[in-house]
């Protein structure tokens, strides 16, 4: 029991802070409730990558005729893109949600309780988790329905879902970091185009070895987003490619750890309690 009745009827925590897990779950529950009650936040960011998938899948389908292209079905190649685009939308949702709490003073209200910064941070990602899971499942189902085949089979589909959710989580952490650093929803939304452009500067539309412009190939090679896409894509096109998966999981985890670590520090300074 985290609290007990004290003389005079006041509830005084036995320890200075309530249990972190309980706090995290409470914050996460709020984040999930907020996400599920704002259907527009789920539907529109989910549809946009699917529209791009449909357009590019049709317009660029002849790219498969380029010698050395790894598949005959361009949609098999392209299906990785919606997962990463969706994850970026998740980052904006998570960031704007927290920024709104900062602007409205809700974070100040939470600061007045014994809540710990870690609980706030991880709990806030609860909404992103829901969004990430829903998006990943929808993208996979739409891909399969449009003729995409996973060479890696059912096991590969599960790994693909897991990696997609991990990527969503990593980008959501980045969104939260931006919210904590800048404190306004407008700032978080303003940074989104910069984030989004990294997809187009990656191997999203063509394999890196087939990109003719040297500068573009160089940028795509140094762009971690390429490796996230290639790991997801490998499960569809080439089967179990250990190197691609290691790089994909590695970059996703690195982004998660770095963003979450920096967000933790930013949260500490944001919770300006004495």
């Amino acid at each position, binding site marked *: 029991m985290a*609290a007990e009745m004290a003389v005079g009827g006041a509830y005084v925590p036995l320890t200075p802070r309530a249990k972190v897990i309980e706090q995290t779950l409470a914050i996460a529950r709020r984040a999930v409730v907020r996400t599920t009650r704002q259907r527009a936040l789920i539907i529109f960011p989910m549809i946009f990558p699917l529209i791009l998938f449909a357009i590019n899948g049709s317009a660029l389908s002849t790219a498969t005729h380029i010698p050395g292209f790894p598949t005959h079905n361009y949609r098999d190649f392209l299906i990785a893109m919606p997962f990463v685009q969706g994850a970026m939308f998740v980052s904006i949702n998570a960031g704007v949600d927290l920024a709104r709490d900062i602007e*409205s*003073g809700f974070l100040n209200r939470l*600061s007045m309780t*014994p*809540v710990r910064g870690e609980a706030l941070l991880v709990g806030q990602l609860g909404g992103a988790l829901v969004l990430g899971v829903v998006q990943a499942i929808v993208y996979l189902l739409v891909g399969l329905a449009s003729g995409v085949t996973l060479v890696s089979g059912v096991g590969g589909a599960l790994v693909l879902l897991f990696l997609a959710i991990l990527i969503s989580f990593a980008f959501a952490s980045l969104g939260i970091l931006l919210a904590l650093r800048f404190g306004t929803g407008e700032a978080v939304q303003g940074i989104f185009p910069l984030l989004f452009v990294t997809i187009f500067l990656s191997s999203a539309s063509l394999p890196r070895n087939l990109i003719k412009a040297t500068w573009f190939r160089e940028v795509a090679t140094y762009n971690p987003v390429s490796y996230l896409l290639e790991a997801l894509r490998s499960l569809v096109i080439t089967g179990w490619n250990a190197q691609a998966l290691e790089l994909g999981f590695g970059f996703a985890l690195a982004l998660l750890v770095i963003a979450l670590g920096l967000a933790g520090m930013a949260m500490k300074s944001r919770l300006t309690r004495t």
Partner: protein
Amino acid sequence: MSEGAAIEVENLVREFRKGPRAVDGIELAVSPGEIYGFLGPNGAGKSTTVLMLTTLLPPTSGRATVGGFDIVRQGAQVRASIGAALQEAALDAILTGREHLMLQATLQGLPGSERRRRTAALLERVGLTEAADRRVGGYSGGMKRRLDLALALVHSPRILFLDEPTTGLDPQSRSALWEEVARLARDEGMTVFLTTQYLEEADVLADRIGIIDHGHIVAEGTTAQLKADIGGPSVEVTPAEVDDGDRLAELLSQFGEMRRNGNGSVTVQLPGGESELAEIVRILDRADLRVETLQLHQPSLDDVFLAQTGRKLEGSGDGAEAEDEASEPAQGGRRSRRRRGR
């Protein structure tokens, strides 16, 4: 610092970078169970003081204890002792009132069964039981303020900070909130630190009032003491003919300190009280000076503010406070003789 004060402040200062001293060496003490009204215009330093006392803003210098705990060194203990409804009712429009209270109860560390009981009791107390499962986005301003108050009370604090709790509320909602605040102090012995820019609010609710202006406390005491300090009632006489202003001033000058207003009207203090009014009427009658209006004024907190600062409280805010002071204009005081039943 004295023993037993619920809130004690010594030479507290908050200076913002490239800004003025929002709070400039204030001193005050609030006894347990007392309602202390912190009255002042926009930008006077009220909200900055509350942010410091609730541990959300570190002071630049000075010292303060809340519930016996130092606000800088014992922040966690201070927060466990207090509830606060800050200037903006910071609520989540997507959540329901009940969800807000359950979240707050969880974060405050109340056990599961107690959370539900406490939530139901507080919803009942603030009259939100029927609206409990509606999203807060659909609440009126008064309902939001009542929920805000309930959230501040979840962990049964001993000390309650209310930062301009009735700003923007309609008279009915304001009155309901006053009743609840008065009840908390009267029935539960809660200490209440209430900031307001409404004279009537301070007059009706507070046991003692501190008047703050430009970061300084310019007067402190009970309303009766503060009013007594600036003298007795005054009478304002407006002659029927503006040209009679000089003659009127001459006739009234024998009664006490006098001030000439526009339209030839003259205000004179009555150190001898209302009984001098009859004599004024007789003198004016004997002098055959026709009067358009004659009004007796009891001293108000606005008069106290005027006497201490040389300005009326209404519209005197200057936005000097760097923190989130309300942007709405101050409301002039409708005088009220109503006192809370304590």
